[in-house]
């Protein structure tokens, strides 16, 4: 649908640009993410790299890659999910308005926080959007129902078999 072809690049644009910005200046971004990373210290699984700059670079690459895929409508649901996964820590790292003392900065950060929340809402809508095709859940329920019918039919034929056999032999 034409609206989707418009909506997806609109939603993806901010991620592509912010991913490029992160790759251009990973140190500055790592500095901004420090309070959150300090809080998460030791809580993250071992496989996650502990170097903040490396994390920022990975996150930037995910934003550009998934952003481009979403913009072009390639694996849109998975890309939207990847972007949501990246947006949550980004928002928690950069827009901690509740910890801000200066009222005007606090207000600014609060607006960004709620805008990011709204973008996250948009990504969730993109992630559940099956474009009118039946969802996995619907297909599973439907398949289960069909299997039920087959089983019932089979059961009935099996139950009828002796009667039919006798008829064939005797009558």
């Amino acid at each position: 649908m034409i609206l989707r072809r418009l909506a997806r690049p609109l939603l993806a644009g901010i991620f592509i640009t912010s991913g490029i910005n992160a790759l251009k200046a990973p140190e500055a971004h790592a500095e901004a993410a420090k309070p959150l990373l300090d809080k998460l210290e030791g809580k993250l699984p071992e496989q996650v790299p502990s170097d903040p700059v490396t994390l920022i670079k990975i996150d930037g690459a995910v934003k550009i890659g998934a952003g481009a895929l979403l913009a072009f409508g390639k694996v849109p649901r998975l890309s939207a999910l990847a972007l949501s996964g990246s947006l949550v820590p980004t928002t928690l790292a950069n827009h901690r308005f509740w910890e801000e003392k200066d009222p005007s900065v606090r207000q600014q950060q609060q607006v960004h926080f709620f805008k990011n929340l709204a973008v996250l809402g948009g990504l969730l809508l993109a992630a559940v959007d099956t474009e009118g095709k039946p969802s996995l859940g619907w297909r599973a329920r439907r398949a289960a129902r069909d299997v039920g019918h087959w089983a019932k039919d089979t059961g009935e034929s099996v139950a009828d078999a002796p009667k039919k056999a006798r008829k064939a032999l005797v009558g």
Partner: protein
Amino acid sequence: MMLRRLARPMLAAIFIGGGLESLRDPAAHAEQAKPLLDKLPGDAHTLVRLDGAVKVGAGVALALGRFPKSSALLLFASLVPTTLGAHQFWAEKDAAVAKQEQVHFAKNLGLLGGLLLAIVAADRQR
């Protein structure tokens, strides 16, 4: 669907908050959107208040999933002038402010995309 019931209030919150702000302090918002408001007929404060009321009303409706398509459409219609009026990064002299405004501009485009998805991704029972 579960996720949609979660996504809509997330999408709507910023509009409810922003609309309440415009209703509370229309003067500041009229100042911010002056370049655009000057081109429109009617009193600037009244326009800002009207827009704030639309944002709050349609925002609450979208959050609750009442008339989700129409309310998303109303919010879309309100966000276009807001973005063009309040975030003219191209007209900004100060480089740091221009950068800030550009981020807001891009985020608002993202919101517009989200609203379009709220319009097309209507509920269907399955």
